[in-house]
């Protein structure tokens, strides 16, 4: 039960959030079909840090980018999703 510090709501329990996908799996509508499909189905899935998209569904309902370690569950950073930064 991780503690996630939502930039809008403050520290909350993991139950309020849902994991959605990795940041590098986001497929925009202007991508070439082959590129889009490849992005959809390929993951690095590291035993370490990764950038993940989570949603604070039972709170502010906003999209967050978590940089999180998949073995220790240590959360390096939480930020509101920002297309200028995260795409």
């Amino acid at each position: 039960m991780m503690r996630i510090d939502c930039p809008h709501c403050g520290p909350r329990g993991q139950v309020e959030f849902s994991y959605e996908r990795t940041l590098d799996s986001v497929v925009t509508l202007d991508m070439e079909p082959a590129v889009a499909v490849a992005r959809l189905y390929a993951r690095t899935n590291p035993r370490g840090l990764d950038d993940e998209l989570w949603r604070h569904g039972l709170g502010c309902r906003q999209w967050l980018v978590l940089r999180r370690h998949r073995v220790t569950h240590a959360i390096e950073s939480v930020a509101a999703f920002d297309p200028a930064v995260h795409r």
Partner: protein
Amino acid sequence: MSGPARIGDRDGETLRFIFDGVPMRARPGDTLAAALLANGVGLVARSFKYHRPRGIMAAGVEEPNALVTVGEGGRTEPNTRATDLFVYDGLVASSQNRWPSLGFDMGAVNGLVARFLSAGFYYKTFFGPPSRWMVYEKVIRRAAGLGKAPTEADPDRYQHRSAFCDVLVVGGGPAGLVAAMEAAQAGERVLLVEQDRELGGSALRDDIHLPVTAAGLEKAGVRILTRTTASGLWDHSFVTLNERLVEPGQRPEAGRPAQRLRHVRAGRIVLATGAIERPLTFAGNDRPGVMLSQAVRTYVHRFGVLPGRRVVIATNNDDAYLTAEAITVAGGEVVAILDARTAVAASRFPVFTDAVPLATRGTRHHLTAVEARVGEVVRRFDADLLAMSGGFTPVVHLHSQAGGKLDWRADLQAFVPGASLQAVTSVGSAAGEIHPIAASAANLPDPKHSFVDFQNDVTVADVDLAWREGYRSVEHLKRYTTLGMATDQGKTSNMAALARLAAVAGVEIPEAGLTTFRPPFTPITLGALAGADGGGHAAPTRCLALHDHHQRHDPLWQPLGYWFRPRAYPVNGETLHEAALREARAVRTSAGIVDVSTLAKFAVAGPDAAAFLEMVCATGVAKLAVGRGRYTFMLREDGMVMDDGTVWRLDEQRYLLTSSTGGVDRMEAHLSYAHRVLAPQLRVSVVAQQEHFAGIALAGPLAVEILQALIGMLPPAHMGVARAEIAGVAVMILAASYSGERAFEVYAEGMSAGPVWDALEGETRRRGGCPYGLEALEFLRIEKGHIVIGAEADGRTTPHDLRLERMLRKSGGFIGRSALDRPALTTADRLQLVGLVAPDAAIPEGSMLLVKAGSPPVGHVTSAAGRVLGGGAVALGLLRGGRERQSEALIASSPTRGQHVRVTVVDPVFYDVEGTRYRD
């Protein structure tokens, strides 16, 4: 007089309890174990495999032997540790796993053939077909298991609570009390939890001065929870606590729960969890009358019970000498202290150095003698109690659960907490402030009867055997022998096992391996885990805003996810089918109303609303005129049809999107993703409104007339929008048809929709119509060939599969477009939507479509119904290459239901093919 007994008089024994049918008395504050000892009971249980007689070995949660069943009826709790249960008046307890009685147990015959039942014996025999194994299994299962579960439902309630604190202190012994006070005085919010009924820890056992009292702590603002076990330490200092408000089997006060589970988020955690004493390993170390030395002191000092009068003490450390003192003061005689060390300080007791116990002698109920090796000589001591101390094991479970490392201390022969990944510190004996000991010698003359895991009957011989056969890692050893996997979770066996493993491997203990620690620290009832969500609350129940309006007609209710929706409104003893057919016919011939409130509804507004909708919807949207709507569908990113519904342009920049009931959460997340992540630059707002509006669909040839009567004007044209009032309530009317008749969806705010339903129902009934439910709705939409999410659109079908490809927006730019070109999505042999008809018999829904009997399925029936008007059955299905198989004859086969029906492939629309009935 020999055997255990109460010290002093017995006047204070005011509590009455029963053990194995025998009435006994106990003092308030006694554990069941203490009370049994005070009543002279030595034999309490039978061991799991060999049914050896067992008594009480410890005084706390680490007890492996004294398991009893307590409580009655639905409060029966098997496998309860007698040492972890405080006697209450009226307690009923009985021994387990014995027949016909504890004293004379047939299961003891296992002990006679023990040599053949060594660890893992069952892997080496019982071969043959599975049916033969299952014959053996029946016998094994009956012999296995300890207590018997209750059969009645649990009458008690359980609560969950959340808590937050700056410091969580686990353990109310001397170290924990000090840590709690220090934190409180530094201004931190402190929560102190203690699994016992009282604070004090080791001070309850020995005369240790406590610098801090409960009252002092409370004055300093510390919140104290007793009878509360810290069960698990999860991510980020999240701790689950199990609080017992009553003892196992005890009836709670009226209206109060029996247990609470608390979810605590702490700033930091201090573990003052103490250390557990290690047994010694020798033949017959499992006999009644063999106890842990500190447990003996606990019984003497805390409970006023002397577990034996002629006592042998066996130890490898100084602590046990305190037990000698305690015994003597209480009036017992210390016959010998067997000290494994070669040099010890002078003592007034008869100490034998370089001395270890070899074996015990006794009856089923009591110990009578101890055989020991003293130097080179074997000596025998008559005794009725053997108090053993093999050193101490710091309780590091929570530290380890949190990912903390363990360090090996050779001087203590113990693992102590090392570096932690979380904000967790350990203090006191949990941190390694325990007596040092030396590594034990490996030679044991009788490994077959020297127990390592008492509860699972695992001996030193079993450990040796596992090693011999190559099960050498700790986990293999544990799983092969089952040691450490009993209800005591290895608290008194892990170190002994590691020590033996290390000895036979010829390495130090840390090289032999480490045990892993998993929650819970002590076992927790499933009822406590479920909390208030047990039983009827295991899933929410969602009722329609118009629930009471439906309930008036006593409908058959249908669950759809968490919702309950009317399935049909039978009258005059109608069956479901009769009612649904009547309702559907009413829709086709006069009119009907159905509650469609659960449909997903999304308000999409803003200058870029149309552009947004065109991202999500695979059909055209942007060209919709104000006041008009159309059917639409949405694709998943992989091109599969994910949901369908309608989109309406209410205003220049305001749209309403509807979609399926079951897909509400999915669609909400999808829209949010499309908006916030894919196209945050679009100026649009999306608001989910499923619960806000109640929706009533009015359908039938008389629908126009009915609606006009209520709103006082001409209703909107097909796929048009209008705003009006019904019975004084503002409504929005969307002219859409799902049934195939002229129809209108009437939306009103949920809380105000009652009069709208009443008005519609009144006008409808007056013209010979009626309310209809989901069953009738199914009949109607199947005839019209409308697909349903979850049936035809099963998450594996593309628009082309469902004959929707002509509606795909040619300009593209919608989610899912890029995945649609993948080669396997356009092959001719894909499962494709077809219609099926049968002249007489019903077509079984879900049945397989076969070319001929016995051939492999080429498709299946997704939705089936009888024709509403006229005879015969119709169905929708998915058929390989179905679009090219018009007129083919197939069999719809359901072996599980014994139905096989001849069907013919047709276009998937059976009623009003030209589409005239629902238009103006």
